[in-house]
């Protein structure tokens, strides 16, 4: 089986790759959002500490 055959998925490429593609995309978006949220929380904690330090 060639790679082009693999990607064409016997005519079901749209359905198959839209399933796997969106799953990968949404999991990646969730990861990015969580990294941002973690950074934001730590930034807020640092700001809180800095304000109390003054």
């Amino acid at each position: 089986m060639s790679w082009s055959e693999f990607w064409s998925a016997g005519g079901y490429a749209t359905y198959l790759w839209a399933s796997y593609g969106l799953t990968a995309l949404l999991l990646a978006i969730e990861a990015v959002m969580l990294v941002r949220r973690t950074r934001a929380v730590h930034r807020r904690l640092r700001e809180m500490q800095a304000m109390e330090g003054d």
Partner: protein
Amino acid sequence: MSSNRFRWSAYAAPANFYSLTGKLIPWFAVPAALLLLVGLYLGFFMAPTDYRQGEAYRIIFIHVPTAWMAMWLYVCMAVYAAVGLIFNTRLSSMMAAALAPTGALFTFLALWTGSLWGKPMWGTWWVWDARLTSTLVLLFLYIGAMALRASIDDPRRADRATGLLALVGVINVPIIYFSVNWWNTLHQGASLTPKGSSMATSMLMAMLVMTLAFWLYSFVPVFVRVRCIILERERHTDWVRTLAGEAR
């Protein structure tokens, strides 16, 4: 005395859990990634083409795991919500809050992949079939729990209200699970039952490995999110102040 001791442990729990989850995350993330690779390899290169559904059936290698995780995470959320309501433990409610977005994501993906399978196989993106409808209700329950929590400013009141909603909604999970037996649905019955499997071994293996990968993976976003929630809600406690001080 005993009530004092109980309260003390409840206050200490978020601090311990924060450090524990920090250590555990890689132990879930790495095996999940490895199993995902194994599962994809089995699913795309070992499992044969289905004689009736062609290559489109390979959608089940994410459809079934996401659908199982959608239901499983809801049960987890309801159990944490119940523990939070009964014992008034903040950490349980924080876990319930952390589970909802990942559960909603898996529910959406189960519906999305199911729809993409349904179009070529059934000839329609959607039918108001018992299983599809009850899974859509599951998505609304997750979104409802998140919206309700976001709408209440006081976190403890939000915990109680959201907990109650999560607990009432858990009745929907057995409805989803048994829907294919209780009603005459377009959705096929379970491929995997205690009596055995109706699939080729390599297909079944791919599905099980993918499910295990998704299960292990689900700990990662939930732990990362609960750590954010802990820091946000415990920001005025001594241990968070110390932690923030050390990080500087």
